[in-house]
């Protein structure tokens, strides 16, 4: 948690670098606070005792400091298992979304003049207007019949529901890649598969990062689909397991926040390790 170092930056503005843009800096400070304050509440709540967590002072420091909330949350959600299931579902959804939608978009955008491909694009886009709650009942029934009432079924459905939006993004991006690059590869004797995997897919990297992030967030945070589709409670994902902490009649803020913190941590850790690649992907796309 490093606060943005702004106050002294304005006094030591170097010549040639230009002055610090105060309005933008202030706006960014406000944005940073909007993230850091809830994060602080989450961390401090997780370390409070049950009686302190319900005393109505969300911003107070934990006193006494206790790890009971974390221990209890770990035990009640069976954290390692719930985490592994969430990871399994999310990994398949992210990889599945990136591979399927990039392949589909490539086929569609390079055959745009053919009616079949054009209509299949509209068909995929149509799915964007079908929210899951509308289809929930039939999906529950169908996955049950197909033996997919488990995390694998959830992962497949996550991929499917992410497909239309991702295809839209990829298709728009693919239009900006000139045909000439592909033609040169074909002259060298590359097949369609080779052109896609060796040439087009690497060029799509920045968009793949975007699509991957969207797919990760949608899948990791989803509550409704796993809660309806997965029939075995032992294979349930973290957001569903965490729903037991807060009911109409009782509040266990310290345990709930401890568990949210543990669910949040992996995403932050993964970002810390991979931001290099994410950033690299973005700049790669910027300099064409």
């Amino acid at each position, binding site marked *: 948690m490093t606060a943005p170092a702004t106050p002294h930056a304005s006094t030591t503005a170097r010549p040639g670098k230009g002055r610090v843009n105060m309005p933008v800096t202030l706006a960014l400070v406000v944005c940073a606070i909007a993230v850091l304050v809830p994060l602080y509440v989450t961390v401090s709540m997780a370390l409070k005792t049950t009686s302190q967590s319900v005393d109505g002072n969300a911003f107070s420091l934990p006193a006494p400091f206790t790890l009971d909330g974390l221990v209890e949350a770990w035990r009640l959600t069976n954290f390692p298992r719930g985490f592994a299931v969430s990871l399994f579902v999310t990994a398949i959804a992210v990889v599945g979304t990136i591979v399927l939608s990039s392949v589909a978009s490539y086929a569609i955008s390079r055959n745009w003049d053919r009616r079949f491909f054009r209509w299949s694009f509209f068909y995929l886009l149509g799915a964007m207007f079908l929210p899951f709650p509308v289809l929930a009942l039939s999906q529950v029934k169908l996955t049950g019949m197909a033996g997919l009432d488990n995390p694998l079924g959830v992962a497949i459905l996550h991929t499917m529901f992410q497909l239309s939006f991702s295809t839209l993004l990829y298709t728009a991006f693919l239009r900006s890649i000139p045909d000439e690059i592909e033609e040169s590869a074909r002259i060298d004797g590359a097949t369609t598969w080779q052109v896609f995997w060796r040439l087009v897919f690497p060029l799509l990297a920045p968009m793949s990062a975007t699509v991957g992030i969207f797919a990760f967030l949608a899948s990791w945070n989803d509550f409704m689909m796993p809660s309806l*589709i997965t029939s075995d409670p032992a294979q349930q994902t973290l957001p569903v397991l965490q729903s037991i902490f807060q009911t109409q009649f009782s509040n266990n803020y310290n345990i709930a926040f401890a568990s949210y913190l543990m669910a949040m941590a992996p995403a932050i850790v993964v970002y810390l*390790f991979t931001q290099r690649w994410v950033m690299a992907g973005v700049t790669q796309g910027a300099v064409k």
Partner: protein
Amino acid sequence: MPSTSTSAPNGLTRRSFLRGASLVGAGLIAGACGSDTGATQITFHQSKPEVIGYFGELVQRFSESRPDVRIRHDSTSNLSAGFVRSSPPDLGCLNFNFEVARFVDRGALSDLGDMPETDRINPDLGPLVDLTASYPGRTSVIPYSLMTAAVLYNRAMFDEHGIQAPTTWPELIDVCEALTEAGVTPIYSTFSEPWTVGQGLFDYTAGGMIDVAAFFQALEEQGSDTGPDSPVSFQKQFREPVERMLTLAQYSNSDAASRGYGDGNLAFANGEAAMYLQGPWALTEIAKTNADIDVGAFPLPVTENPADRKVRVNIDLALWIPEMSPNQDAARELFSFLMQPEIIDTYNADNLGFGVTTDAPEVTHPTLVEVQPYYDRAEFYLGPSQLLPQSIPIHNYAQALVTGADPDSVLRTIDADWARLAFRS
């Protein structure tokens, strides 16, 4: 090892990450397939969070006596999805509300009338169950625990101001006036959470004044004819209770409109008000802040006759076995195990519930002993807010009433909602 530590941050390569992820996946699939052995497996659905641990132990005990029956203790699955998928839990132990009522109405739950335990159930509770939902010729659900709600009051504060628990409406108003004069907030209200208004002020005043069961039976028969001119309607029968509710609401804390359930528990525990219209579930929350507070309970008097006082009850837990379950016998065994007097009575004593069997002991909790006589005499009612289907947002209507909406127009809306719903179904 300073030389090796520098390379540690790069230890997680993409390849090793993928290898790890695939291992996890393979482990899951292997785990899912490996559980298929010769034992009967039944699913026990119980989702009340604070007692998951307790039922977990019971399930463990049962498994030790019956090693050939494996029990899956489920507290997260979606109930409707289970029924849709034709794999509902084999034994359910849930709050008896409209979610479960749907399954009863459609005959999805099996008849437990032939179980010997059924005869032990307090016969006064039959009408309560039937009023919520019933299927002809079946005993679809068996009550397990009953919650009895009344006005919680701070005994020390009442003593300090020389006040007794009121027995009639004028006495109640006197108590409120006396407390106000002494500078004490009489009632702590939490209007920002609609359900607290619905189950509290709204249910208590209506239940203390009218015969809730008779009203809803008449309303049911009347169906879509309900309106301003029909013999029973919210506009007619609920007019007076709502007026009294609004009178009472004026004795609330001034910031009630921005206070929620959590704030209410905290404030009452800290002695900021003398009375709090919540059920026994709030006692555990209050104890989180102040374990030593001496809390009493009395049924809200809404009429001039002390004999009209009644407590509000709801069936907190009820057991049922779906018709679809392929393991009826094993489920029934677990049912009988849970219904054993020492188990059901321990549960109710630990969780501030009232026993539902004729052989159950009286409650011992210092707050609840005050309402035991009313339960014994069957002077109780189901809250009207529990008897309206969820498609009528009664809690929000109650919230509108206490925050200044016109009672006539709100009651007229409820009547219209009821008529529309009856017309549709």
